[in-house]
């Protein structure tokens, strides 16, 4: 429109892939809302030490189970701690537990799944049988067992949840690799002279990435809830430090007397889980070059 424009077709430079994905993501309203929700909680959790809020562990015997008020915005809990402050600090523990444990699961599970599906044979048999054995154990039971074995702390809870979620990613990746492996372009990559490692990383991984991403967002939600369960058992976040899960689990004892104790952590978990799911769906669409 201005005199200085260069026709985009003539210089042959199309927008780079990243900016394409980004612009597609921005046009997806669901993804945008998801990103906003997740982003909001991430920022709040990150800024927790800087915010002018009460000490989340400070108790007050004069303010036990107070309803939300101007002084205590979200109310207080059974030993008079400020729930607003605990919610913000708890976001740190919960988000960290969700994201870190899924990262652990992805970082271990995806390579095993790739190798298992790509090479087949004995490698596949060995990896698949171990995966089957782990999947035969209920997710939470496995996480509890591992956490108990490692010792009670938030870090160990994350490791336990991550390891328990790993077989899902091995199985998912392996299945995706098996279907992508038969595509001609994988054989084409061999015909060009690429090595197995290059074929797996450049041809197979990008084409199995979308379902893994979606599974990861769903698993973040599961992991947040798993962390809550472990905290309840005393295997996760250690008191007096807060996490949404441990707050919710304490709150269930006071459902009739102080229902607000359950409202806020429940709503927060619901929102974060929803946010991750919307974001994951949006990312899946945006990363698929076949959808414009």
């Amino acid at each position, binding site marked *: 429109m201005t005199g200085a424009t260069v026709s985009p077709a003539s210089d042959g430079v*199309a927008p780079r892939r990243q900016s394409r994905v980004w612009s597609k993501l921005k046009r997806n309203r669901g993804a945008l809302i998801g990103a906003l929700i997740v982003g909001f909680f991430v920022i709040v959790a990150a800024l927790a030490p800087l915010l002018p809020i009460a000490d989340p562990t400070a108790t007050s015997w004069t303010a036990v189970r107070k309803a939300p008020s101007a002084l205590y915005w979200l109310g207080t809990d059974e030993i008079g701690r400020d729930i607003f402050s605990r919610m913000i600090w708890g976001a740190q523990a919960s988000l960290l537990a969700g994201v870190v444990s899924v990262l652990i699961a992805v970082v271990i599970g995806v390579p095993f799944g790739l190798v298992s599906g790509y090479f087949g044979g004995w490698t596949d048999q060995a990896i698949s049988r171990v995966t089957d054995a782990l999947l035969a154990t209920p997710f939470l039971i496995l996480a509890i067992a591992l956490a108990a074995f490692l010792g009670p702390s938030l870090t160990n809870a994350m490791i336990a949840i991550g390891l328990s979620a790993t077989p899902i990613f091995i199985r998912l990746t392996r299945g995706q690799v098996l279907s992508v492996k038969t595509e001609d372009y994988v054989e084409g990559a061999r015909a060009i*002279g690429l090595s197995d490692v290059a074929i797996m990383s450049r041809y197979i991984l*990008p084409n199995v990435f979308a379902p893994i991403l979606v599974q990861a967002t769903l698993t973040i939600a599961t992991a947040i809830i798993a962390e809550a369960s472990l905290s309840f058992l005393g295997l996760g976040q250690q008191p007096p430090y807060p996490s949404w899960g441990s707050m919710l689990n304490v709150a269930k004892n006071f459902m009739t007397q102080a229902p607000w104790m359950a409202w806020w952590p429940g709503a927060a978990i619901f929102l974060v889980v929803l946010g991750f799911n919307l974001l994951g769906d949006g990312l899946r669409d945006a990363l698929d070059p076949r959808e414009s």
Partner: protein
Amino acid sequence: MNGKGHDNAGAGAPARGDYVLEARDLARRFKVGSSFLATPQVVRAVDGVSLSVRRGETLAIVGESGCGKSTLARLLLRLLRPSSGQVLYDGTDISDLPEREMRRLRKDLQFIFQDPFSSLNPRMTVGAIVEEPMRVHGIGTRASRPQQVADLLRRVGLRAEYANRYPHEFSGGQRQRIGIARALACGPRVLIGDEPVSALDVSIQAQVINLLEELKAEFDLTLVLIAHDLAVIRHMSDRVAVMYLGEIVEQGETDTLYDAPLHPYTQALMRAIPIPSPRSRKVDSGLTGDVPSPLAPPPGCRFHTRCPLASGICKVERPPLATVAHDRMVACHHWEEARAGIPSAAETPAHSHAAERRFALYREHSLAGTAAASDRTP
């Protein structure tokens, strides 16, 4: 720029220098139905194939679907390892080469796929796809390769700007051109096409075939084409090998083989070429029955269950692929009778005349085709 690929072309042993690719008694068996308890059955997809590809020629391998021709193509490129037998490239046995050395050789041997919709990585741009072979084999520099990619795209009749698009934005014919550009990118000496045009519209087929012919001359390539369309083959190949159930039954120069097919199976294939005339619309190959299952191929000559000339010996003894004339091989106990029987298919001249018209169509297209294709946008 691809001339560099031929520097060592004359360096081979003079005696064998004629042959760029040879198969010796090549066989590939696949196990099917393998499970914990069941004994697997064995498919002999390729069974004892010997074949020589001469430098600079176009060799066509023809046969019905399921006869093992795609497996043979993959064996020649060592995309599959043979169960037994050898593949010689420039006189060296490549059937047992370690993967690392084989990868280096892949620069010389390239492949064009049948299905243009699954042969390009949907996550890579066209430019990245075409550049990949150069990157792998260290051709050009990071700075020079985009220009080389643009040249290649233009050469196969696409616009250079297409480099930034993704494969799904293109039609089947255009994708096949992208596949051809990729195959040419590392300056190969041998190009093997696994039915490179059979997935395309007939009008596009002619364009792509003509493109391959031009490129063959320009880049000094040897072509091996797998096909089931006999009209296409006659148009562009120098020699033809006919496959049936994993074996080569007849081999010879294209014109002599088409004019006087010696194997009863080849004769049947020739009769099956459709005739573009409403009065002779009926296609009669003279064949009865179906192709036997490759799980249980018939003993003796594999064609005897469907052969009009079959006799007792055919059921017992497998006929060897024997040289019967200069550059002419046939695997049939009764090829002399078959040859004598050629006049009985007296309409042959009419057939070949009709077929000739289809070949002429290809030639016409070759002038208009490439120009028209480059104007096509997705």
